[in-house]
């Protein structure tokens, strides 16, 4: 049989098809990325708290706003919301080098290597004790609680190893930022406060990161996000987390 030429397929309408797809994607997608501050909501507890926990005034950085969008930081009226971050940095760093008991800022405690080792051994013994005493829902909860303590001390042990110093100075465990709003406060001011908190904590951690590791906090963060299994950067992040913890309480307006 004679060989026949296969007729060429007309590709003239290929461009039309591609255009159609292109226009579909142009319409259904957006260029701008969604940016947000992720916060966790505290878990609901059914057991009523009989006695409110007393927190020293020096450990609280209260940022208050009212329905007229006026701002108050630690009892002081603030006109420009951009000043909040300076206040937060002052709150963190005032007693960092040396404790001034007369000041109204959170105190720092210094733990050395030996204390951490001792504490770690103590909680591990506690764990074994509870573990040996039978099992039940209460025991399991206890074990979980002790486990979290063990993790905490292990993190500190690692942190002190990375710092290369003898003692780890830590801000008071109760020091926190409290955001108090009213129902009619604008969302813009509310997010501005969060923006200022993030900015202040970023700056503190960035300075420490440059000093300790010669690398910016932003680049450390993005490396952790890109490769969560990279232990070196993960430890760096956790050390900076211990040095400048971000503890924010959002008070539900009444």
């Amino acid at each position: 049989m004679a060989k026949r030429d296969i007729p060429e397929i007309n590709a003239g309408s290929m461009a039309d098809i591609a255009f159609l797809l292109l226009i579909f994607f142009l319409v259904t997608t957006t260029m701008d990325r969604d940016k947000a501050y992720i916060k966790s909501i505290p878990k609901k507890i059914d057991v009523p708290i009989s006695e409110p926990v007393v927190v020293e005034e020096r450990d609280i950085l209260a940022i208050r706003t009212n329905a007229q969008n006026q701002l108050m930081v630690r009892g002081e009226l603030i006109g420009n919301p951009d000043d909040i971050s300076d206040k937060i940095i002052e709150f963190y760093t005032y007693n960092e080098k040396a404790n001034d008991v007369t000041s109204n800022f959170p105190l720092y405690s210094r733990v050395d290597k030996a204390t951490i080792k001792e504490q770690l051994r103590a909680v591990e013994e506690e764990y074994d004790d509870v573990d040996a005493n039978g099992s039940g829902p209460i025991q399991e909860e206890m074990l979980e609680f002790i486990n979290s303590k063990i993790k905490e001390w292990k993190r500190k042990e690692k942190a002190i190893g990375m710092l290369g110093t003898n003692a780890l100075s830590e801000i008071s465990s109760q020091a926190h930022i409290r955001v108090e709003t009213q129902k009619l406060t604008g969302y813009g001011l509310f997010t501005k406060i969060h923006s200022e908190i993030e900015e202040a904590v970023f700056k503190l951690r960035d300075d420490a990161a440059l000093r300790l590791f010669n690398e910016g906090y932003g680049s450390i963060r993005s490396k952790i996000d890109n490769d969560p299994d990279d232990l070196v950067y993960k430890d760096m992040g956790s050390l900076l987390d211990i040095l400048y913890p971000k503890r924010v309480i959002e008070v539900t307006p009444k």
Partner: protein
Amino acid sequence: MSKFKKDNSKEAPAVNTSSLPDIVFMLLFFFMVATTSKESDPTVSLNQPDGVKTQDMTPFKQRSEIDFLYIGTPRNKARIDQFAGGYALFLDNVAQPNPGELYNATAVRQWKMDKFEAKPKSLRVGIEGVITCVKADVNAPVGVVFDIRKELQDIEALKIAYAVQDNSGI
């Protein structure tokens, strides 16, 4: 007598368009890579506040581990009076919002549960793993956000995100 004789009888040759699809495909791929798909168009309009040092929500969007809700003024001006303060809630992917209940913070609970159930079982991550992202207008009252927080707390969806406009990273 000229050397270059004008030949008017011959028409200009057609431009070869066989590489046009290639060009268009290239554009297509660029847009496919550089953009993310839109959620439903909200029926409320809003002007987002600015912020810095934010977190990018794109990875969560790609894994569909994020739900969006909007607080803004209704685009349908006739409806403005129906809502206290003139601000309405719009829940993502709710096709026919019933103004009576769906623009209410208590509807958030049902909406979250519905979205969770709608996902195929193999893709579910647990309701606590799905972020709820609030996009609100600059002047929207914060009280609504806290009402939503309370609803989320009840169903243990404990991750919330406050959306802002962040132009510092670009």
